[in-house]
């Protein structure tokens, strides 16, 4: 199960096939990525096979936890609000240093400061079951702001 949507309330992600190591690592606020050993490349989202070669030998490696904003939007009216009334908020595609892209939020700065190519670093939003949701915050000179 990847999760369940409850409109108007916080959605907590489930744990899909092949994603257990990802979510377990978030308990210690660690961002890990699945790497295909045959391709020697990471992929995202996690699944039990490599989307390039369909190989099933997957190695989990810690990610640097840094990246840049690839694209973003400031949402002024949300259907599923991750911040319980905190509109507007930023939804962004973040390109990690390892080259994969993940959807997330940019937090910790006014929405108006977010731009494409903004350097960001991972930060963690607690979930109800001890896991954490990876989000991102701007970095200044390599240090999270």
């Amino acid at each position: 199960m990847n999760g369940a949507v409850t409109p108007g309330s916080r959605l907590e992600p489930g744990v899909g096939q092949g994603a257990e190591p990802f979510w377990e690592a978030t308990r210690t606020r660690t961002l890990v990525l699945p790497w295909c050993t045959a391709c020697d490349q990471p992929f995202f989202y996690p699944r039990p096979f490599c989307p390039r070669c369909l190989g099933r030998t997957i190695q989990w490696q810690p990610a640097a936890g840094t990246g840049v904003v690839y694209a973003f939007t400031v949402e002024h009216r949300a259907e599923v609000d991750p911040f319980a009334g905190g509109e507007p908020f930023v939804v962004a595609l973040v390109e990690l240093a390892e080259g994969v892209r993940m959807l997330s939020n940019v937090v910790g700065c006014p929405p108006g400061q977010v731009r494409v190519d903004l350097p960001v670093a991972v930060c963690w939003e607690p979930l109800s079951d001890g896991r954490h949701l990876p989000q991102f915050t701007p970095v200044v000179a390599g240090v999270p702001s």
Partner: protein
Amino acid sequence: MRARAAIVGVADDASPTGELERSGRDLEVAMVAAALEDAGLTRDDVDGVCHTSSSMRLAEALGIHPTFTDSTNTGGSSFEVHAEHAAAAIAAGLCEVVVGVYASTPRSDRRAGRTRRRPERDPDDPIVEWELPYGLRLPMAPYAMAASRHMATFGTTSEQLAEIAVSTRRWASMNPRARYRDPITVDDVLASPYECEPLHRLDCCLVTDGAGAFVMTSAERARDLAKPPVYVLGAATCHDHSMISQMPDLTTTPGRVSGSRAFAMAGLGPADVDLLMGYDSFTITALLHLEDLGFCAKGEGGPFVEGGRTAPGGSLPMNTNGGGLSYTHPGMYGMFLIVEAVRQLRGACGERQLPEPQVAVAHGSGMVLSCMSTLVLGTQATV
């Protein structure tokens, strides 16, 4: 497959109120009957059906036993995909007369308390795990992100995107059934509130009731029917992701593939096109079509749409019915692209009729820029 099949009947319904009286299967069957009448055919002629959720239930309601059936759903581009499949099936001899139909009444459903809850998401859909927890608003947010990337990469501006809404509204002013017909300006678009920045409310399509149908048959049979046939000269489809985080490049859609393949089949190119019906769920959607179909180079869509180039009197008429932005948008809009393209090629569009168009492109976009499907349609003169 080129010109082996032709669209011979069309129908659509929409209202300036945004609401229709009929709904559901009742409305669908009314559209099928109207399109068959337009073609000069009857229910008994139909041996193929297309529907976005169940071609089997549709056929049962119509009381027919088809030998070609297609329930493909690629979102808003489903109807271009249906037409592509139907043309291939007719060319292969699987069937002879295919109907495709769509009806959706979100607006009157809401008012009448027939509020259909948003369909439950499949809990195993990866989007529930990897995108929705971040508050991703569908369908706007993915398109807004594509706009942000296009702006950052190519310098495209909100004013340029707004030009598309302004030009489309000018076409809508000549469509008596359009939801919105009053002229708007670039400033109006920019002054409308943000939905998902950088997209304003007037960058976004409508939510209205609407319905439509098409009838397709073989080129041989098309010659003897009621209206001038509109031939399927080229057709192609491509999808390169389902959810937005998996889109390889947010500034380039799979329309680049579907478009070049459809043009190649037709033996035509963008310079031959008299009318582009390009799915305008959002202004950015239409801008990406202009680039990916080759009407301008990648990144030049912004300057291209300036100065009313796609408006009445412009060099590339686009969305002459007023589009999803101003005519109607019931959820999956692709049917209306086909209906307007056919009517323009027949010369049946009244005040907004183009001067003797020969080639029209109906280019559907489904899900979140995920599945593009391109039809190149032509008159008898192009065959």
